[in-house]
């Protein structure tokens, strides 16, 4: 069994928090540039130019001031033994990254008493056990302007494909200018209430614009993206073609009585960074 010190996880999480918030991944940049080329609205072109200018600055100022809740996804190989307290190691990484990286502390200790924890902890931690002897860490800081526009519905089986499409399009329409369009639309279909929401969040981790490997859902992603971009909402909601950069759909088997559907919206500052230890 491979031994891994939890300190290595702390260091990785700390540097990934800073990197994610100051450097936009290439897949996202290229998607935005492609959208700019396809944009036919004059106001929209100008907004997209400013967005490109913003992520091209490349200094140590965060791309967006909402440096998010630190969503940390761990895929832990079954052949690895991690010494020390894992959750504590991740939280220490978040604390270090957000403090030393001058990132915003956006977490309150209780949803109702709303006292800031002062170091952006705790992380939202998602752990999967997988075969192998490696640890794959993905840090995806999530801003709440877009998180707040996300929705879940327990649809009926009779609602079918049409009901799923309607719910996704309605969610984008209700969000309008609020989540900083152009947006990324993460969709979960199936599973249980909780797993469905998680699917939608995981859909946001996929490299932007990479279609589902299921041809049916790849077609559906393309169709929905076209419909969303025909809505006219546009960058920042000022009108234009580029309302969304991508639609990503993930699915799970579900119960005979249910058709859960979740939509997790992300903004154009779609941050995600992965390292393997």
């Amino acid at each position, binding site marked *: 069994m491979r031994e891994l010190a939890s300190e290595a996880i702390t260091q990785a999480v700390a540097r990934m928090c800073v990197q994610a918030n100051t450097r936009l991944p290439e897949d996202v940049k290229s998607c935005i540039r492609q959208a700019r080329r396809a944009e*036919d*609205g004059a*106001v*929209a072109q100008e*907004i997209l130019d*400013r*967005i490109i*200018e*913003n*992520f091209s*600055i490349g*200094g*140590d*100022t*965060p*791309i*967006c*001031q*909402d*440096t998010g809740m630190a969503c940390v996804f761990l895929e832990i190989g079954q052949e690895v033994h991690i010494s020390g307290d894992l959750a504590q190691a991740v939280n220490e990484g978040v604390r270090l990254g957000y403090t030393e990286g*001058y*990132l*915003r*502390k*956006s977490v309150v200790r209780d949803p109702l008493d*709303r006292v*800031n924890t*002062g170091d952006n902890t705790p992380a939202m931690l998602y752990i999967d056990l997988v075969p192998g002897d490696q640890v794959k860490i993905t840090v995806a800081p999530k801003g709440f*302007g877009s998180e*707040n526009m996300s929705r879940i519905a327990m649809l009926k089986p009779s609602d079918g494909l049409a009901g799923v499409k309607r719910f996704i399009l309605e969610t984008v329409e209700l969000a*309008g*200018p*609020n*989540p*900083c369009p152009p947006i990324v639309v993460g969709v979960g279909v199936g599973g249980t209430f909780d797993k469905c929401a998680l699917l939608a969040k995981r859909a946001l981790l996929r490299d932007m614009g990479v279609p589902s490997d299921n041809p049916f859902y790849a077609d559906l992603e393309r169709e929905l993206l076209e419909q969303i971009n025909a809505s*006219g*909402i*546009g960058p*920042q*909601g*000022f*009108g*234009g*073609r580029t309302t969304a950069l991508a639609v990503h759909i993930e699915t799970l088997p579900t119960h005979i009585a249910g058709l859960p559907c979740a939509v997790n919206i992300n*903004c*154009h*500052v779609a941050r995600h960074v992965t390292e393997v230890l």
Partner: protein
Amino acid sequence: MAKHITAPLTKEAAAQLRAGESVLLSGTVYTARDAAHKRFCELVAAGKPLPFPIEGSVIYYVGPSPARPGQPIGSAGPTTSYRMDAYAPTLLDLGELGMIGKGKRGPAVIEAMKRNGAVYFGAIGGAGALLSRCVKSAELVCYEDLGAEAVRRLVVQDLPLTVVIDSQGGNLYETGRAAYLAQRDCV
């Protein structure tokens, strides 16, 4: 060509702005988000003075990331405005003339804007690094315990904004989308 405007605003200057116009704002603005707005309204309800001059003021809905040594501020883009809708009419009725944020406003806010001749500006959401360059200085006014949500006095220069809702209720979220669709469909 963007119009140059100055904060604090005057009723006359605000009245001339129209939804869809690009402006470059220079002068003094105050930062406040959810938690600070709640405290402002508690002060007003208790008959106490606000911690900054409200007459003609422009409030920027922003919670900046921390400033690095030698810099006035960190990343400083707008937060979503509807969360301040519960508080905005109270401040507008006291003389606030400008709000900077992003996203939709409710009918009560728009009514209060029309009643008082105020303007709602949009800054580009997610462009906090770029916008931070327009901030020349930042000074803590109050509520340090709120961290990023504390009230700060910012001196800004040529902050690029778009008039989203004007003092007559003109709304770019409605007209901009309609104009784009009309342009697209007539090609």
